[in-house]
């Protein structure tokens, strides 16, 4: 059965090729169903292949073919509990999002093309996740960047969508640079990119300085893909794509890549305490910063975008404090409730005829029962209310931060404050959207979405509610499941006993306070005006975009302009034109020799022959 592992990657790629080349002939509903099936089948295969791990089966490597054997980068797949879990998340949530898109993208001009790109995205992510060496992982890493670009700018006739796609791609390229240089250092240190060798020999071979350099560069890559400070700016703009794309990027694919990569490279990161401290601090800072920005957003999707950045901050913080299982656990639960929230938001936007401003919604719970109830699960799960998924995974991270102690207590505090803010802004989103008076025009007729859209919502709501039970302090199922992947890694665990209950209670209290403040502010009739001062700053994302624009984009543009208008025109063109005119003038000097008289040519031949004869005689010593 393990021999069919390659199908996991091949099927989505096959779908992508088919739909991009022949999509027009396959037509509207058929191409959507085809694409969904080509993600659902890998999910089933992956589920079957995962079963042996429940009985603590050994991880397996499947060698497909040689690619660049010299650097240890072959087309060879690693099937261990970590990659199995990631595959299940990617294909499981991915197929639900595909199913949802069948309804959501109805009537789009380039419907088959959309599903082609979606399949490409899934295939790329699976390549990244299943690779057993950094080389193949990098291929997946880049393909993910490409497909996100294609999907974010899917409606490229809108200038803002085209710009958002470019922004995502360029910002990711900056991260890719770090990742690539990191890979070069790994190759320099180990002579191979193979996971087995690199992680196996890291402990004896790597000096602390080298480990720090490698892991910091890898982390630069992670900040790009997983949207951490300072490279998070592409994610809010990625909202320009169709909503299922946002769900796919934020939940199942792309942003989880960085966290996965760090967890996969745990053996390297473990050797670099400085990097770990930086990773954890950046994660915590991102979590807090993004949460405070999310408060001020008016666009329902942008609230969710900043909340994704904030939640990714938690995951990065978790892997930074070497609580890798907790990070992956939160990655999983977040995939469920964030996909749910995005698909729910998409359902709302769909119903409101593409209105995204929450201030023009309100009272929708009466019109969209299913969407409302399922989104409520997502809301409570991300807020971290007992016993939903977010509560367990977030508390495991916070508990680990607390258990690590010292400097990390500050991070724990940041995490708790972020939890409060998260509960606040999510409640704000729910109240503004579903409760209170309706604030939309009479001609918008909100309605419940078709079954292809509500079924994924219901499934994801169930998962958001129940997935937390996979790894509770009482029963550490996920922890045991992932053990073979983190063999020999010293992980930090949440404290036990009374401290644990105290921490859980503290975070619960904080969540309830957050919800209560939001209810007090938005839930009682008149809404507060949120203009000027802090609100304007938060709505603008604290002007980070403008800052990057002034500090990085503007100088870059100036250099490019100088290169194009001066350097290219005078130096490059000058060299080419100069060469041309030199040849031309040389030719016009020589043309006088071309008299057209046969006898002058004959004279030339005779003179030349005489010259040769004389030279031969001279060489022979005749004179």
């Amino acid at each position, binding site marked *: 059965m393990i021999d069919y592992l390659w199908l996991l990657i091949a099927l989505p790629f096959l779908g992508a090729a088919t739909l991009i080349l022949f999509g027009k002939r396959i037509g509207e509903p058929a191409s959507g169903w085809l694409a969904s099936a080509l993600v659902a089948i890998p999910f089933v295969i992956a589920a079957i292949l995962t079963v042996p791990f429940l009985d603590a089966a050994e991880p397996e490597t499947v060698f497909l073919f040689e690619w660049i054997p010299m650097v240890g980068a072959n087309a060879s797949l690693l099937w261990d509990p970590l990659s199995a879990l990631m595959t299940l998340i990617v294909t499981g949530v991915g197929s639900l999002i595909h199913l949802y898109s069948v309804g959501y993208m109805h009537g789009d001009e380039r419907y088959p093309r959309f599903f082609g790109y979606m399949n490409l995205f899934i295939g790329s992510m699976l390549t990244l996740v299943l690779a057993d060496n950094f080389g193949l992982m990098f291929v997946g890493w880049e393909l993910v960047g490409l497909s996100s670009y294609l999907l974010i700018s899917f409606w490229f006739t809108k200038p803002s969508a085209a710009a958002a796609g470019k922004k995502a791609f360029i910002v990711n390229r900056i991260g890719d640079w770090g990742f690539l240089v990191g890979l070069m250092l790994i190759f320099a240190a180990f002579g191979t990119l193979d996971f087995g060798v690199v992680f196996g020999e890291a402990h004896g071979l790597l000096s602390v300085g080298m480990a720090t350099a490698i892991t910091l560069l890898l982390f630069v890559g992670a900040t790009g893909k997983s949207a951490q400070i300072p490279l998070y700016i592409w994610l809010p703009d990625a909202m320009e794509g169709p909503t299922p794309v946002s769900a796919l990027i934020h939940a199942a694919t792309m942003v989880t890549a960085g966290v996965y990569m760090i967890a996969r490279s745990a053996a390297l990161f473990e050797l670099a305490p400085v990097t770990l401290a930086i990773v954890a601090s950046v994660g915590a800072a991102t979590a807090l910063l993004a949460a405070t920005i999310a408060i001020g957003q008016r666009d329902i999707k942008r609230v969710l975008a900043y909340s994704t950045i904030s939640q990714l901050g938690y995951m990065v913080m978790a892997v930074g404090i070497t609580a890798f299982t907790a990070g992956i656990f939160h990655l999983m639960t977040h995939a469920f409730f964030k996909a749910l929230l995005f698909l729910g938001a998409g359902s709302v936007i769909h119903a409101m005829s593409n209105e995204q401003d929450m201030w023009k919604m309100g009272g929708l719970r009466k019109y969209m029962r299913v969407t409302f109830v399922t989104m409520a699960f997502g809301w409570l799960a991300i807020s971290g209310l007992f016993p939903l998924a977010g509560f367990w995974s977030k508390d495991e991270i916070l508990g680990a931060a607390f258990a690590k102690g010292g400097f990390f207590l500050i991070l724990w505090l940041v995490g708790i404050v972020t939890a409060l803010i998260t509960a606040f802004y999510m409640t704000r989103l729910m109240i503004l959207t579903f409760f209170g008076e309706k604030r939309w025009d009479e001609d918008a007729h909100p309605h419940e979405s078709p079954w292809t859209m509500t079924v994924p919502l219901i499934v994801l709501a169930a998962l958001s509610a129940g997935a937390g039970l996979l790894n509770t302090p009482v029963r550490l199922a996920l922890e045991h499941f992932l053990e073979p992947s983190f063999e020999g890694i010293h992980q930090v665990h949440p404290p036990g006993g009374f401290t644990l209950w105290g921490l859980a209670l503290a975070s619960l209290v904080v969540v309830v306070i957050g919800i209560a403040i939001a209810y007090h502010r938005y839930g009682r009739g008149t809404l507060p005006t949120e203009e000027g001062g802090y609100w304007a700053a938060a709505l603008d994302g604290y002007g980070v975009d403008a800052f990057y624009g002034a500090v990085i984009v503007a100088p870059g543009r100036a250099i490019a302009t100088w290169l194009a208008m001066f350097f290219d025109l005078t130096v490059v063109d000058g060299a080419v034109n100069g060469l041309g005119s030199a040849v031309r003038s040389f030719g016009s000097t020589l043309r006088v*020799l071309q*008299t057209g008289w046969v*006898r002058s040519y004959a004279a030339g031949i005779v003179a030349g022959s005489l010259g040769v004869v004389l030279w031969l005689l001279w060489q022979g010593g005749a004179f």
Partner: protein
Amino acid sequence: MTVTVAWYMVFAAVLFSMGAAGVLLRRNALVMFMSIELMLNSVNLTFVAAGSEMGLIEGQVAALFVMVVAAAEVTVGLAILVAVFRRRSTANVDTLSELKG
């Protein structure tokens, strides 16, 4: 006074120089051809003389080759000459300078 191989060589050199002078100085294409033939045959003479002096058959073989090439060259050359003469009513090569650069 015996006729040594040097006599043949000197004679051939004189013939060759006459031919070369003809090619360079005469303007009539037909005469130029005849001069070229003169040059070729003076070379043939050196081949044959040297071959007989050294007792080698290759000298005569080379002469035969030169004759074949000369025959071919004359065929093509005279055809061109006839074509040019029909068109221009002259065989003066100095008027044929259209390819001047």
